């Protein structure tokens, strides 16, 4: 289902890019005619967001999006680490091909968030096939420490999404069990200096 949606969206991007190119041409040629026309409308689109490791990061994400004038944040789905946004690709990512949109979006979001948020393609594996692993941790109740713990696991192959909270004392990871297991997650956490409670 997700694959189908992506394919549709890519086609849409291509259409929008063509429209944008046409608009740009018209703007240059007959600006007086277009000055009073209604703005181009675009459909909402969903992306997976990295850096959403705790619910309070939703507010941070909203603040960050205010620095991206050409991309409008519609909704944030914390549970799935997804954001619904609207943008005109021609304005938001001028010159980008449709297959470059996610990368360009990711670059922009990283740029305005000091690399604490990012964008990656929606996950392709069905949620039912994923396993949620919860690992107890101990440490300071500090958002940046949570980011560090989160970053130590979310980039690992097979991790589809993750959360971290020292206040709650746990890291969670939604993983593809065929690719990664708890041991590897714990190893990565320890390597970053995250302390796991003694058994």
């Amino acid at each position: 289902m997700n694959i189908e949606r992506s394919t549709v969206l890519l086609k849409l991007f291509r259409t929008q890019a063509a429209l944008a190119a046409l608009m740009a041409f018209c703007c240059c040629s007959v600006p007086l005619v277009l000055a009073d026309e209604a703005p181009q409308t675009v459909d909402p689109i969903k992306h997976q967001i990295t850096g959403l490791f705790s619910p309070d990061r939703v507010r941070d994400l909203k603040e960050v999006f205010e620095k991206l004038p050409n991309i409008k944040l519609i909704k944030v789905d914390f549970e799935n680490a997804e954001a619904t946004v609207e943008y005109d690709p021609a304005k938001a990512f001028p010159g980008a091909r449709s297959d470059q949109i996610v990368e360009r979006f990711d670059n922009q979001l990283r740029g305005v968030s000091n690399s604490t948020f990012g964008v990656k393609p929606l996950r392709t594996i069905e949620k039912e096939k994923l396993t949620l692993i919860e690992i107890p941790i101990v440490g300071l109740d500090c958002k940046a420490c949570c980011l560090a713990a989160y970053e130590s696991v979310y980039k690992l192959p097979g991790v589809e999404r993750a959360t971290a909270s020292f206040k709650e004392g746990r890291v969670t990871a939604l993983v593809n069990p065929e690719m990664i297991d708890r041991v590897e997650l714990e190893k990565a956490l320890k390597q970053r200096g995250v302390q796991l409670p003694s058994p």
Partner: protein
Amino acid sequence: MNFRFLTIVSVLLCATIGRAQTPIEFFQAHCYECHDKDSKQGDLDFTSLKLNGADPESFARWVKIHDRIEAGEMPPKSKPRPPAAEITRATKLLAESLIKAEQAKLAGEDLTGVRRLTRAEYENTVRDLFDMSGIPLQGDLPVDGSAHGFDKNSDALDISHVNMAKYVEAADRTLDMAITTQPKAPTVTKQRISLANPAGFVAHVLMNGDGVLLKNKQPDPDFPPAGEQNHLDQGAHERLGSFRNGASVGLFRHEDESFHPYFIEFVALYPGQYRMRTSLWSFQWDKGKVLPGRGTEAARLSVVQLSGDGRGGGHPSYVLGYYDAPSMNEQEHEVVTWLNYKETIGFNAASLAPTANYSRKGRAMAFTGPGITCDWFDIEGPLHDTWPPASHRVLFGELPIVEFKPADHPDVRPPRRIPVRREVGAGKNEPDKESGIWTVHSEQPLVDADRLLATFLPRAFRRPVDAETRQGYVARVQLRLKAGDCFEAAMRWAYRAALCSPDFLYHVEPTAKLDDFALASRLSYFLWNSMPDARLWELAGANRLHTPDLLHSEVERMLKDPRSQRFVEDFLGQWLKLRQIASTDPDRKLYPEFSAYLQDSMVAETRAYFRELMDQNLDASHLVKSNFAMLNEKLAVHYGIPGVSGSQIRRVPLPPDCPRGGFLTQAAILKITANGTTTSPVPRGAFVMARLLGKPPDPPPANIPAIEPDVRGARTIREQLEKHRTDTVCASCHAKMDPPGFAMESFDVIGGFRSQYRSIGEGDPAPRGSIDPFIGISFKLGPAVDPSGILPDERAFQDIVQFQSLMASDSRQLLKNLTEQFAIYATGRDISFSDRSQMAAIVAATEQQGGGVRTLIHQLVQSRFFQTR
């Protein structure tokens, strides 16, 4: 031809001196018994010893004979005393012979030899000439030698091809900095920098509990103090803005080998004046709570030179100052200072004890102790009142700065330009965008060159410059213009030549009596260690400076000028050897309370005390005894004197019978005369004799080993010296040298008062005393100190207080010595035997007016000795 002539003169001179009269009858009656060819005690045989003024060794020996008879040291106490009249007659005859011999030798010679500028004089002169108050030059010049205690003596100021190469480099650097290359002043930038700026070391220690972030004087809820766990991943914290949220930074740890806090988000790109402001306060940290502190703490700001080597111990730096951090009350401080390219500002929580929560269990949440908070640090600059800056106008006056377009000047080489670049990535301040080549423009290059050099050369050479000399420099400009240089580049050749010329590098003084310009220079290099200013120049030009009243008022003006601090620092650096303050590192086990803050306070005390002697015109007895000291809190605690708070040095009255007061009991002097681990009465006694009494002891015989103090605490140095002094060869010198050293045994290697020696071996448990409770103590207390002694004149003392009184009672000798030290420093020559009468006259005139140190300076400046080359 000349050589032959000199040989003949020398032979005649020797013959003349050889016939000089000596008090033979006196020697026969009182000296031959021990000093004839048979006895020859002390390797001295009067029957064969001739006074040869041309031989320095012979002459010095006869001076010593004169001095020992005059002082009553010879004949020795064990022999019958000659009648006083006989001694007077003998010494008078001897003195007349010595003066005659010396004058014969020095006939036709200038008393002060030709001497170049010292490194410090060179740097100060360039700074004042170009109004670039912080250009660093002396560090790259070869170290000056020293003669008669100072580096200003012509005997010590040789010059080599190395010097010359360095002078050329220094001249180029000066001109690079002085000449502006832009039509507008660099943009003034303002930055507020957190002490926790990520590249400045502090963020790292905050993550690990050696400090905390504070908001509203409470721990920052977004950055809890490190406890059982530390913060993870500094990069994650930087990206989330943990160190940029406006929080104040509270530090528990002072600077050490691996921790050098810098405000490195600013790194100077343009040399010039910068205004800095900061807000500081202190607190007591108690395992997560912020409580009122123990008092006013002190933080240090320093200028850090990132162009130097930063490995192992940080980059080269110098102290800007120490600033108060009152308990729980923010205090704002402002300082304006000159910064050079690639310099930044360092911070040190200076008054704190060494602390490292870094790897300690529980880190900050288990720590109780003082902290210093920096709320913020602002820096603004470069500040320019005018543009082009004064340095440029010194060289090019008001000539316009225009864009140089190579196409418009096909036959002219454009001026060399090196764009300003940001080399230190951590610096956030950016250089201005530069476009085009801008340079000074002249419609009449040779006319302007002549006019500009006519102004510059006399100022640089500190005296009028004749037209012929000036034309030589104009000719250089003309040559370069013909060779295709632009006006700026051609003028640079002339200016560089001038800055490397003997006229600039040397003190050029007329023979015999100084003219007004030479007098102005001698005065300014004495009291400012630099060139004369416009006022002195004007008075010299009007030929009025020799007027005694005017000279007096000028000395007063100069002593009140901040530039006189250069005299204080340069003179004390050599007279009392303050330059050697950091040459030893006290043993950390024996002296754990030692810190850079204490050492800097020591130096500040001695300088402030000397300044107070001058400002209050106190007499020479104050060199060794006074009822006040110049202290800050750090020193006051070190000395056990209550009631002093804060980092600033101020005058503090001393309690009765306090063993402090005067240079002898100042921690700087006591540290300089120790070796870092132990003290010995010998070097300390020798220091007192040479530096304060003007009676330097003879060097030790070559075959006598030095005494090594016993750091295990088994035997005192006095016990070892007693054995040493049984040797008759050693006894005569040690009888004079040891007593001052014995009295000073009451002070340890860092100037702390002691009644027992510290030991790292045997001994009693040591009470903490005034040592910071956060400093660990492992030393023990060994044998008791015995500070008693007997002076060569049989006067006994029980302790340092009694010794100070005995010394102070001989204030004439102290004043005489200070007169000679000033005289050597001011004129760049040693005091000859013939000069003694002039020195005595200065001393007498000073005593008649109360004997004050300021009066002494006036009397010296008014003297023929000072005003004659």
